């Protein structure tokens, strides 16, 4: 496992959701750098890029993505020794049992369904930030 910095990798194809997520992060004073990519392929490329000084602290992953799906991105993250311990939170609209089960089977750390109401969404992002960026102790450097 490479050393991690405090970047959040946001994998989201919907510009509205992207903006709302960044808005919610900022209004909850989560000052981490945010790297946003539009699809699964781009996400894997970013993670694979060897010139990166380190991996992100957290991946916020949408499931329904163009090119490579969120589930496939998760599987590939878990299958590489470089990224297999990376905290990945799925942030999606779906609460279908099959999606939830598939994500847990593929080793997701947390599964969050985006609420429609922005107040709830903002609260959700706040809790996420507090838990994964402050409380949670990430994987050790290798």
């Amino acid at each position: 496992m490479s050393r991690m910095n405090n970047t959040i990798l946001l994998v989201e194809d919907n510009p509205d959701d992207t903006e709302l997520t960044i808005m919610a992060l900022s209004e909850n004073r989560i000052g981490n750098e945010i790297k946003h990519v539009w699809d699964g392929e781009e996400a894997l490329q970013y993670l694979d890029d060897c010139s990166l000084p380190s991996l992100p602290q957290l991946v916020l992953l949408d499931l329904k993505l163009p090119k490579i799906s969120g589930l496939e991105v998760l599987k590939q993250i878990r299958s590489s020794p470089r990224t297999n311990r990376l905290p990945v939170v799925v942030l999606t609209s779906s609460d279908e049992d099959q999606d939830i089960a598939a994500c847990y089977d593929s080793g997701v750390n947390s599964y969050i369904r985006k609420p429609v109401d922005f107040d709830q969404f903002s609260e959700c992002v706040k809790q996420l930030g507090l838990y994964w960026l402050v409380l949670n102790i990430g994987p050790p450097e290798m």
Partner: protein
Amino acid sequence: MTGSLGTETDSPKSATTKIRILRAIDRVLHDTLNCRNAGIVAQLCFSISRELANSSSGRFCDVNPAGFRHTPADCESCVIAARESGPGNGTCEEGDVTQDSCFTSMLKGKCAVSNCTMPCFTLYKDLVLNIIDGLAYHKIIRDRHGNAVDLEFTDVNPAFEKITGISRETAAGRKITEFLPGIKEDPFDWIGFYDQVAQSGKAVTIEQYSHALSRWYQVHLTPKDEDHLIAIFFDVTKLKESEQMLKSLNEQLELSIEEKAQQLKTINNELDSFAYSISHDLRAPLRAVNGFSRALMESFSDKLDEKGQHYLERIRLGASRMGELIDDLLGLSRISRRSLKRRKMDLGILAQGIINELKRRDPERCVELLIAGNLEVYTDMKLMRIALTNLLDNAWKFTSLKQTAIIEVSSTIDKEGRIFVVKDNGIGFDMQYSDRVFAPFQKLHSRNEFEGTGIGLAIVQRIINRHGGRIWVQSSPDECTAFYFTLKNGGEVIVSDE
């Protein structure tokens, strides 16, 4: 017969003549079968034979060659058949097998059936001529190595003509390859099979298609010896055609059922992907409407007056509510898609747990819960929990204006079987609206009075239906509401169920 027709000193030529005469007599016999009195037939034969003996029989034969219906071999087989047919014809001895004595014996022979005075020959001939089954006497024709190469139709009956469309003149005494050359092309080896049966000595019945005649026949073969056999048969083409039609209809039906099942599967898959798409795609724009309205309100509140802010708030609430409705619809569709996982459970214990949770959330309320014992059922735990939660949520909600709310969970038995009851002393409703209670998003009370989207009872009804039961309601305003539901087999465990 008279002695003039057959003596042992006859020359070969005169014997041949006599044989011809006998054939003529036989033909007459055949043609006069309608004479009820056998004596008349016999007399007729004698007179004709005398007549022929005194005339030029050769000329008679030349003039009427088609009148000969029997070959000498056939005549012989008649005698054998008569001898074997029973004790009543015992006059035909081994040594009697000569052309004239054969007929004499048959005419003298009496039927084996007691009190029947009809001569055997007439009796059997009557049977053979009138039976509706085709009859044929066969001889296997062999080559010099003993291999069966052809099949002789020694004689056939009138039903044979009718069934096969082949006249007696065409078939009798001839080989099958002569009058039905198509037999050689038939994929079924008729000659070989007949030979096999004759050799085996055992009677068999087969159903076989004749390609030469384009008909199906059921053939019963009785071997007489290794070269002779009797075939009794009838046309089963119509039966076979019906059978084949039935088979093809069945196949079509199976195919169409399979097709329908496939269509249903496709529709189900479409429904699944539709539900998925709703859950994912429709919620995203709602989040945008809600989120950016809020952002607008936060960032530009100084530029919006109270009315403007109120409108933005309404937009946000509308989006949130639509999100709820979408979730409810999804919930409803999930109930239909879920496969039932039945297990033994007690509705009373389940109800107690749900009420405890409601009490925990709303500790101010004074609610009396009455649960009857033994409410054991065999149902899908997850779905029954959803159903009961909806019913008890309603009961909890609509008794909120009562000082002391009473909620009752019990069961009764009537002619329909076991009926489960969830009853409350809440505000109730007018029964004229009872048919709307179970429709999705139908509410009998305004949103301001009581919360909810109106999906709950639609979900309950679907769950009960999925368990093979039905649900109905009885209510009177300001008094009580009682939901009644049944479950398949009264909710009992039935081993063969599902």
